[in-house]
């Protein structure tokens, strides 16, 4: 579904991504894990069209995706849940969600957008309860639900999530990730970028390990969890605890 080859991107002269090759098959849950500053967000932002690639190819459903506007990336079926939620704080929950389906309204597909809204409310009943509340007054977990709901309003086939677990209590993280995993049965493919490697690998089929702008490991989630280097670097296991396992 998504195929990225030798992607390079960055900010001005700073080259952050140094030739990333990744693919996500339809129906898969794929995670990209890595430390802070590895380039994970830069990667998602580039796929989403927020950043222009310096070189390389991005294909979505066998069509090139590079150098088209973020708006059109969404219209093609590829939505981003940005890092830090970035909900529109002064707007209500319902307004935030409506904005997620902006391209549907522009194309006068109001019915479709309303259908989608019902699905989002079904997925996150708390958003329905608080639909007139201002987004800025929601708790962190609720804001994350809103951010995911807003992205789902676009009816994406590929949902990209940037650190959905950030700043959330472990129990909330668990519930959010379970919801994300559940989206698969609605036909949504997931590309999940996470620093919380253990949680991400817990729901993913496959994963990539990103280090300073390069992919250094690819494998099934099980293989990555078994890899001692991953355990040491990202799962917080010390040599001793690995040996004592």
């Amino acid at each position, binding site marked *: 579904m998504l195929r990225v080859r030798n992607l390079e991107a960055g900010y001005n002269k700073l080259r952050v991504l140094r030739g990333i090759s990744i693919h996500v098959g339809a129906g898969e849950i794929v995670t990209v894990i890595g430390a802070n500053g590895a380039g994970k967000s830069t990667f998602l932002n580039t796929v989403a069209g927020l950043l222009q690639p310096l070189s390389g190819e991005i294909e979505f459903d066998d069509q090139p995706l590079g150098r088209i506007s973020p708006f059109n990336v969404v219209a093609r079926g590829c939505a981003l849940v940005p890092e830090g939620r970035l909900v529109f704080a002064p707007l209500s929950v319902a307004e935030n969600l409506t904005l997620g389906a902006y391209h549907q309204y522009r194309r006068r597909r109001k019915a479709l957008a309303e259908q989608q809204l019902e699905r989002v409310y079904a997925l996150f009943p708390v958003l329905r309860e608080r639909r007139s509340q201002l987004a800025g007054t929601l708790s962190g977990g609720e804001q994350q639900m809103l951010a995911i709901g807003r992205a789902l309003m676009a009816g994406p086939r590929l949902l990209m999530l940037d650190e959905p677990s950030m700043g959330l209590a472990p129990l909330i993280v668990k519930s959010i990730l379970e919801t994300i995993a559940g989206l698969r049965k609605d036909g949504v493919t997931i590309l999940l970028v996470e620093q919380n490697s253990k949680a991400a690998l817990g729901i993913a089929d496959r994963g990539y390990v990103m*280090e300073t702008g*390069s992919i250094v490991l690819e494998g099934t989630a099980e293989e990555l969890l078994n890899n001692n280097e991953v355990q040491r670097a990202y799962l917080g296991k010390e040599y001793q605890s690995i040996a004592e396992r």
Partner: protein
Amino acid sequence: MMYDAATESLARAELTQLQIERLQAMLRRVYRNVAFYRTRFDQLGIDVEQVRDLEALQQLPCTTRADLQAAYPYGMFGVPLRDIVRLHASSGTTGKPTVVGYTRNDLQHWSALVARQLVSVGVSEHDIVQIAFSYSLFTGGLGFHYGAELLGAAVVPASSGANAADQLAIMRDYKTTVLAGTPSYALTIATALEEQSLHPEELNLRVGVFGAEPWSEALRERIETKLGLRAYDTYGVSEIMGPGVAAECEQRCGMHINEDHFIAEIIDPLTEINRGTGEEGELVFTTITKEGFPVIRYRTGDLAVLLDGDCDCGRTFVRMGRVEGRTDDLVMAQGIKFMPSQLREVLMRQRWIRPDTAIVLDRKDGSDTIEVQVAVSEEAPFFDEISRVSELRAEIVRTLRTEMGISVKLTFVESATLRQKVGTKGVSVTDHRQR
């Protein structure tokens, strides 16, 4: 039947994407973790980030057996030793052996790849698999063992130490359905079967999975008739993985290379320039998932072709032909270049000759002499008839002259002596011409 149908029948574009992803990640890991490659790439000014497609791999230097030997024992490992859970060593025809290490993930991949090739020849969890490869530092025994076990078959770790009669007794009593071993050992078992006047139908054998030494279609037929099974060729290299690198499917039209784990190339052994599909050359492998012992463009020394076209079995992985010989034991004598295996192939067509062959080269009065030592099969009806034996000798000498252009002195020796001399390789070359 496929063990991992989604992967084994992956469309070429998707397979290429997977290969490039794994190759790039592997190159970055290897550059960081293996001093040998880091030093070499730095010296040659190679930036691994510049490998953007599979063709770019061809620009990287090859790794030779000598490189691996120089790094003996652990110099080529891609992870710290504490992450290694298994060590094997390659037999090493010359010089030091090569020690190869496997991480837990490597072992899982390895088992899955062997399971894949067993399923591809119709082996299932209902089978009783007798493994007559040596259980040792050699990868054959444990490699097949883990694969068959993962598949859920009943595994009989008979190893190759037992004498043929004992092996046969196990086979009969345990109702073995699948035999894994070297083709020459299979032939030895077949001979024991005849010695005990047993009929193959008294056994339950159905499938034979053979490898670890070069063999021929003629030998395949002999084994199939004598043991009453369907024989399949497999290909493995310890430095790459062991068994599980490539294997025939039921179509028997070449061995599918597990391309999701290994990238295969064919090169000219002299110039290292890549050759196209259908052209014979040296097989070169790059491991793209190995953690413990990753190698970049390892020269196997095996001569083979990569085959064009699709296989009827539906697998999309490229196939390789039989290993036609080695790059390193090409014999040049009497102005003729030949592979010992070629000579062996001619000999193996002779019904009453055992497949082991020792070749002794010498120089007499300025011209090369080629002595070929073989053993007459004990089952030959004329085993002690001198006149018939010399008839056979004349016939073989004549065949070798017409087919290979060499004139040889044929000597019949004791089968046991010969076996000792040629070892498991089945053929040995001794060259006295230097002195």
